[in-house]
């Protein structure tokens, strides 16, 4: 198991390299000069050249990449063109906010997804199954930014129970675990949890139905196991897949929550990406994408290792 984990860790290196190249190129092959957004329109050619040299944009691409990678290695993601602050501090604060939001959302989604999935899978074809399935289809297909707005209208505007935007009182972007902050988390987390809930519920329903139709469930009953004992076996059989799906969902939420973060003005990576794109803030964009991609790679690693630990049929080679 340890050897497998180390081996798997080693495989991360080429993937990480590829990710860094793509991150770097992605930004450079998009049309438009990043400097035009920040330079005054009437800047002279010399001024533009000086600025370009200051950011290293005058060198050939491979050289730029090597310089950029070298800096990334020592934790220097450059400075944001728009704000002039270090990209690393901006990104790490945004990442921690997003991490909190998406982890809580995934946890909620995982809990209800499992609940609905197991109930639907066990009572397949019954009314409960139809309700649970309808809810999960709804979860996958409802536009979540729209759901977010509806929730804001109902709970913030009409009922005035919960704040509509921000991550803390007075637009604070530094998270602490207290009620004042958690109040701000509830609506975006619920909105966000709807997607993983739907996906997990559908996956688990299909899995449970498939497992229950297998002969070993009959064999368990034939050796006198009670329904509770059989349920334990079913859970252990669903766990590897359920965890894999959850890990991937968490990965998607980390990077894919631009709409929700914008609706709720949540100071996370999605919000940051949005700003970076509109301001053509190249270093910030690169840094954010790189960090998010790395999170995805690491999450995949974690899921792989966990899955191998849980499912003996996956070769520990």
């Amino acid at each position, binding site marked *: 198991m340890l050897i497998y984990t180390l081996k798997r860790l080693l495989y991360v290196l080429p993937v990480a390299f590829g990710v860094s190249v793509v991150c770097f190129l992605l930004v450079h092959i998009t049309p438009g000069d990043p400097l035009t957004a920040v330079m005054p329109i009437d800047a002279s050619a010399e001024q533009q050249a000086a600025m370009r040299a200051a950011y290293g944009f005058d060198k050939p691409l491979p050289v730029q990449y090597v310089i950029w990678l070298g800096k990334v290695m020592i934790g220097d993601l450059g400075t944001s063109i728009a704000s002039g602050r270090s990209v690393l501090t901006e990104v790490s604060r945004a990442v921690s906010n997003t991490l909190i939001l998406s982890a809580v959302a995934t946890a909620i989604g995982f809990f209800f997804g499992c609940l609905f999935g197991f109930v639907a899978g066990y009572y397949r074809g019954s009314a409960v199954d139809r309700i649970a399935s309808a809810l999960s289809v709804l979860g996958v297909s409802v536009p979540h930014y729209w759901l977010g707005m509806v929730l804001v209208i109902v709970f913030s505007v009409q009922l005035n129970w919960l704040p509509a935007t921000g991550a803390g009182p007075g637009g604070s972007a530094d998270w602490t675990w207290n009620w004042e902050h958690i109040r701000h988390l509830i609506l975006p987390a619920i909105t966000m949890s709807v997607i993983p809930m739907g996906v997990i519920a559908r996956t688990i329903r299909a899995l449970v139905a498939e497992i229950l139709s297998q002969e070993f469930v*009959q064999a368990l009953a034939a*050796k006198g196991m009670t329904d509770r004992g059989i349920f334990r076996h079913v859970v252990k059989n669903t766990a590897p897949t359920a965890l894999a799906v959850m890990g991937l969902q968490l990965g998607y939420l980390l990077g894919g929550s631009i709409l929700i973060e914008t609706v709720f003005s949540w100071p996370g990576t999605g919000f940051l990406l949005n700003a970076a794109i509109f301001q053509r803030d190249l270093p910030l964009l690169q840094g954010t994408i790189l960090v998010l991609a790395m999170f995805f790679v690491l999450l995949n690693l974690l899921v792989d290792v966990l899955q191998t630990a849980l499912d003996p049929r996956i070769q520990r080679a």
Partner: protein
Amino acid sequence: MTDIPMIDIRDLNVTFTGGRKPVHAVNGVTLSVQRGEVLALLGESGSGKSVTLRSLLNMHPKNRTKLSGSVVAAGQDILKLSGRGLADYRGKMASMIFQEPLLALDPVYTVGAQITEAIRRHEPVSSAEAHARALALLQKVKIPSPERRLQAFPHEMSGGMRQRAMIALALACNPQILLADEPTTALDATVQIQILLLLRELQRELGLSVILVTHDIGVAVEVADRVAVMYAGRIVETGSVRDIIRNPRHPYTQGLLASRAHDAMSGARLDAIPGAPPDLAALPPGCSFAPRCKHAAAACLVAPPEVVEIGPGHAARCVRLTEAVAA
């Protein structure tokens, strides 16, 4: 041996009502098995032999099955058991060996865990004791290096080894009745005979009452004391292995014996029974074998033939025998 049979099935009818038309899988099966006796249920696919076997553990889904008749095993009326009582009976008094052990064992639990789980389900023993008993069981079914095999997952074992583990699991709580559902069908021919010999040996040693379901007359001859031939949910002929082989009286049994490659001359055509078994959702009113029977007469199509006693322990359901007795 006592006079009270270990297994006593009387007029069992099993109808599956889940589909559009009810399927009459078992139609009035009556059979009994003594303590320490091996009965082979012989028949082709869809003849109701597995359904009969599963009734002995009351395994049919309640909402989609209509059961009538009585199934008494070890003094308990099985069809009246439910919930906890049924779970206590399963695995403890009677246990089952499945056709394909790879499907019948949980893939994410080790073989050892699955055996100890069964032991601890029925008996209040410590996990160390259960582990020791599991080890002894694997030794009993002659699995090499049993200590290591306890830690193995089902997919890490060979087919024959898995079926041995399945047998060990079935014997975990010292049941009195062993139900084997085509236990060797999924195995290689060489492994088949080993498993059959093992089953026979364990059955004698433990004095088990066994019902063995098979479509292979050779398997039945190898292990069984008595054979019951099933066709379209009815037992058409029962008798000792000797009766069935030497003196088959039902045309279906005769056809089964004739269709064996065993005694056929090489190059000669194998005698197959023409036609296919009837649709269990629309059984003919008369003898269900009549459409395929070369001796079929008008009387065969009227009502199902009665059971005719041919000799001690040898009986068949055929109109021709009824006529022979009447004459």
